[in-house]
């Protein structure tokens, strides 16, 4: 357990070294809210503009959490390039501790990064029910760990930085666009029944719904009233990718190294 925490600590320390990247992500969030959010909310009927703006801010928080959790996969390529991978594999840490620690590290650091963003979002939206918010944030932790696990799984499966970059772009396009991050489920349903089914079982939808529920914006939730399904969905998502991550990590890397 201690060694797992050391792995988490290492990922946190590494992340904090990339100060420019953290600042850039912060600017990205500010631009999304201040430009896109404000302008896009003027496209809906005037009486719903403020509500959509709040809805959108909550969505951007989850999108930011998703994209910063994915970042751990890019770290793996950076480490492979510098040979750090072999070093990590030579340490007195089991492969399971290593991959679980990295998933958690990826999730925790995303949360640390998203923490101030959540605070800004809650300032704009307001905080209706602290207990709900706490439950929602706990579930978002699992979401962040799951996305990190997914990113690690894809990275070690592909072993190519370019292919990873392209695939993550595609995954991002599918998983975020086919969710309720930026638009309510009723609009997805109107566009296509198939889209609606996919978006209902999408971890990004689960995370977005939970955050909105936690923040008290319940009007456009996919699952009403208590998003138990979303919590269960995120738990399954977390365990699936952690388990797959451990298995693939062991098979692909220990079998013949990164190269």
């Amino acid at each position, binding site marked *: 357990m201690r*060694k797992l925490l*050391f792995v988490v*600590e*290492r990922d946190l*320390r*590494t992340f904090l*070294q*990339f100060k420019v990247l953290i600042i850039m992500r912060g600017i990205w969030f500010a631009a999304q809210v201040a430009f896109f959010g404000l302008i896009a909310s003027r496209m809906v009927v005037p009486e719903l503009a403020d509500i959509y703006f709040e809805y959108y801010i909550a969505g951007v928080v989850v999108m930011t959490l998703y994209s910063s959790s994915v970042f751990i996969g890019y770290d793996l390529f*950076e*480490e492979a390039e*510098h*040979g*750090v991978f*072999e*070093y990590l*594999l*030579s*340490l*007195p*840490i*089991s492969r399971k501790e290593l991959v679980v620690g990295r998933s958690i590290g990826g999730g925790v650091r995303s949360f640390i990064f998203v923490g101030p963003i959540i605070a800004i979002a809650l300032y704009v939206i307001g905080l209706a029910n602290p207990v709900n918010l706490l439950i929602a944030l706990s579930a978002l932790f699992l979401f962040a760990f799951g996305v990190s696990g997914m990113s690690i799984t894809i990275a070690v499966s592909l072993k190519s930085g370019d292919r990873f970059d392209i695939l993550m772009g595609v995954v991002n396009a599918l998983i975020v666009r086919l969710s309720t991050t930026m638009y309510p489920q009723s609009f997805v349903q109107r566009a296509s029944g198939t889209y609606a089914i996919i978006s209902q079982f999408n971890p990004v939808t689960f995370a977005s719904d939970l955050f909105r529920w936690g923040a008290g914006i319940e009007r456009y939730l996919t699952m009403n009233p208590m998003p138990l399904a979303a919590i269960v969905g995120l738990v399954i998502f977390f365990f699936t990718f952690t388990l797959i991550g451990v298995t693939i990590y062991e098979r692909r890397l*220990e*079998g*013949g*190294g990164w190269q």
Partner: protein
Amino acid sequence: MSIIQAIDLTKRFEDLVAVDHLNLSIDSGEIFGLLGPNGAGKTTTVLMLSTVIKPTSGTAVVGGHDVRKSPTDVRKLIGICFQEPKILWVSNPWDVLNWHAKVCGLSTQERKRRVKQVLEDVNMWDYRRKKVHGLSGGMKKRVEVAKVLIQRPKIAFIDEPTAQIDVVGKHKIWNMIRELRDEGSTIILATNELYEADRLSDRVGIMHKGKMLVCDTPKTLKDSIPGGDIIEIELEKEAGQSVLKELNDFEEVADLVSLKPNKLKVHLNRVEEIVPQIIEVFLRNGVPMRSIRMSEPSLDDVFVHYTGLTIEEAEQKSPSR
């Protein structure tokens, strides 16, 4: 007592057999030099023994644990100094070593003490907070070596420890490796520097094209070259045929060449044992000696003897991975 035993250890990378049915036994507490040109299979052997990569076939028992069946147990006993420093560019030496010591189970106090001590020993204390991307190749290598020195593992794999390091630094690191051994570690030193292997190793295994050609103490390896030792003798006067015959009769003498009437070159074995007897032959026959110069074979000569190539030629011919 054997602490590492490789049994038909083999690693293939597609068509390339990087390590080919390696059989090897390393005793506890020795410095074992794994010598060979780049591409000989040394690093692949180290990576398999340290469980970083799995063998294609065969296995190895390291510290009583099979590398295939109990890799986590093996990793608890080992430490590696990699050939290329494995450090992320955004880190600094202090963080890298402090974290390494933490993972290796050192207590907070002991960790801080050892990290400071070793950083000072490898002349990196002043650069402990400098980002890795600002360090020279030699400095990065010192940090890499420092990992093992801090950890003091039961079994240390040290891959080309003094590559890119200046002469003074080399001697310092060699001394530290010896101290590590004296404190109880078994050391596997992979190197293509023959002088380094000769100076440090209790035994040397010469690898070429993934195979272990020969393995013994440096002295035995050198003695295994027929006529490997050379002495050049300058005499006050010409030696007669009877003297030359008497010299040729020593079984240690492999060849005797007259460079000049009063100058001889003798190829022989076990020079340190036979020279007093050669001197005695000249004195007994009334042929005073003006000078005598002895040279022993080096591990370069051993490598040439067993491969037919110099280490540089072998490197040029080695298949690239």
